[in-house]
């Protein structure tokens, strides 16, 4: 597919994105936000791993008190939500607006489920006597999952805004940008959890 046809597709059919369209989803500037955020989490991972290497026993001991089941369920919840969001984008582009909106709502709902499970996990962990100052491990556990949770909650808000804005479907290029940026942000939240979960809960 030639470059000329690509441009024609993006300009003339604002509602139906050609499946062969090779343009970057969303907005280039927004991806710098995504990369900055991903970089911050990478730094968090490095800092955690570095501190762990000087006292592995302390970290392993702390890890044993984590509720792996809740972490695993949350992982499954989040990957499912990503699937729903990707499907939502596809549906919106094919102008199946009602299905698209339902899928966005489903994504947000799973996000709320994740948050509820996470907060329950915090309550249980705190009840068993572990706080942010119990040990370096628990400092990282609460802070890293906490920053992730804050990102996730912001993501749910973004999804609600996107859903509201697109309630009549995609009506222009700005709607597309909103949808794609919202989806990209949500997938980032999922991507980060893919590392956070094994790093904190499983790796020893």
């Amino acid at each position: 597919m030639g470059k000329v046809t690509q441009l024609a597709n993006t300009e003339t059919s604002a509602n139906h994105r050609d499946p062969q369209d090779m343009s970057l989803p969303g907005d280039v500037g927004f991806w710098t936000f995504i990369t900055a955020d991903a970089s911050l989490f990478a730094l968090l991972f490095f800092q955690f791993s570095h501190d762990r290497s000087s006292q592995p026993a302390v970290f392993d001991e702390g890890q044993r008190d984590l509720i792996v089941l809740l972490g695993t369920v949350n992982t499954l919840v989040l990957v499912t939500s990503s699937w729903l969001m990707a499907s939502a984008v596809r549906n919106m582009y094919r102008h199946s607006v009602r299905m698209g909106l339902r899928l966005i709502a489903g994504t947000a709902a799973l996000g709320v489920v994740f948050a509820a499970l996470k907060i329950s996990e915090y309550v249980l962990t705190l009840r068993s006597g572990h706080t942010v100052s119990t040990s370096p491990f628990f400092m990282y556990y609460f802070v890293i999952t906490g920053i992730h949770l804050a990102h996730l909650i912001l993501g749910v808000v973004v999804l609600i805004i996107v859903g509201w804005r697109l309630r009549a479907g995609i009506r222009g290029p700005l709607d597309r940008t909103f949808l794609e940026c919202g989806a990209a942000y949500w997938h980032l939240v999922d991507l980060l959890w893919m590392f956070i979960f094994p790093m904190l809960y499983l790796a020893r």
Partner: protein
Amino acid sequence: MTKNESQLTRLCAWTVAVYFVLFGIGWGVLGRMIPPYPASMPAADLAQIFRDNASTLRIGFAVAAFSTTFFYLWSVGLFRVMVRTERGGKILSYTVLIGGVLTGNDLMFSCFIWLTAAFRPEQDPALIQLLYDLGWLMLDLAFGVAMLYMIAFGVIVLRDAREKPLFPKWLAWIGIWAAMEFLAELIMPFFRSGPFSWSGLFNYWVPFFVPATWMVIVSVYMHKAATRLNEEYESGLPQHVEHTTIG
């Protein structure tokens, strides 16, 4: 933007350099704040440092407090450019102005507090430590005012509908991101050491040096924008009207 306004705005853009040099030398080098002493340092040790270096600390913090004068000038210049960039009512432009000035205030007042510790360092070490703590808690936890101007700037720039925007969109996003990162300061009071304390990676190095770099880049574009706005004016393009009533 008239020629006179354009020239003054460009001058304001340049004042960021004056601010950074004076603040960098005063606060950073003489004030021994790159990096700061950790919150875990015993009061006796901290007091000893203040006694041994009282003169340089006094000059450092005094100059650093004064350097914020140029931060305010920079804010005003940025405000003028924002007014010409912002579409519609100028609420966000005023937010940039207020946020910038309050951020300068935050920097200034925390320098007064550290200056006080250096003024009479022979007093009880616990008091020196108290002042040092106070300065840092104040500087870091007032981050909200910086969020105001960085996010308002970001939104104005994102909404700039010019063919060739005055500021690049990625600069808006980096500013918004850096402003959001400040939220990590909310957990700073829980830690006296480690990466989340006031001397740590996430509550010192990232929130100070990323926004500082961002400010420099903003200033470069601010300078260019002032020139372009003058050209727009000279060539008779419709100007963004400023609503000059205050309140």
